[in-house]
């Protein structure tokens, strides 16, 4: 079982990541991937880019902890998570998750579980760049509801 988490400014090609992941996972049977692109529209406005901030090592460690959690819940052979930060233009891939398992349903559920974390709990702040200026994206109500999601010691 290998877990790889990369948070970086470097652009990447989801297909290339999947090719590499497939090469090392070819005993697995099934591989599920999710890739997310920056959408050109938000609230009727044209978005030209997103700007993402992370806070390292908290961001990467939080993602890794979720991957370890996934590994405990499902029989997984391999997990890759790659997330961009910095300036990301419309149409570019911002996140890539791949899971490999002998059990198809496990690969699907684990990828979905990881994406849930990346979308709502992962330590990223997101700013939309539009024609009318730049706007920090506020968490949705659902994201607030379980406000005590971070462990405080």
């Amino acid at each position, binding site marked *: 079982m290998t877990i790889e988490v990369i948070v970086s400014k470097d652009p990447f090609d989801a297909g290339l990541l999947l090719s590499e992941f497939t090469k090392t996972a070819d005993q697995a049977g099934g591989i599920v991937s999710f890739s997310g692109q920056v959408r050109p529209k938000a609230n009727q406005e044209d978005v030209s880019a997103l700007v993402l901030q992370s*806070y390292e090592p908290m961001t990467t460690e939080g993602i890794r902890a979720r991957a370890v959690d996934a590994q405990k819940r499902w029989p997984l052979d391999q997990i890759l998570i790659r997330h961009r930060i910095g300036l990301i233009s419309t149409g570019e891939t911002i996140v890539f998750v791949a899971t490999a398992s002998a059990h198809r349903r496990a690969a699907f559920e684990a990828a979905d579980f990881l994406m849930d974390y990346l979308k709502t*709990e992962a330590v*990223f702040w997101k700013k939309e760049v539009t024609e009318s200026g730049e706007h920090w994206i506020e*968490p949705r109500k659902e*994201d607030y509801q379980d406000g005590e999601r971070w*462990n405080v*010691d």
Partner: protein
Amino acid sequence: MLELLYFGKLGDVTGKTSEQIELPPSVPDLNSLRQWIDERFEADGIFLEPTVRIAVDNEIKSNDFKISNAREIAFLPPVGGG
């Protein structure tokens, strides 16, 4: 010397994403730090909001945490938003 980090919209409020600073003796814990920073930037209470968490040297701490040996303190507004 302490490094303060302002993430997300907090960086817009302060006009910077980080700064090096010497805290006055009147700011011994995170509670008083929130108030001091909020007044300094005339931030209208945004630094007092409980949804803004504070990490000291990369660990989230509660408001009564004593700052004394901290090297880096980060103000973290809520994450999420899809």
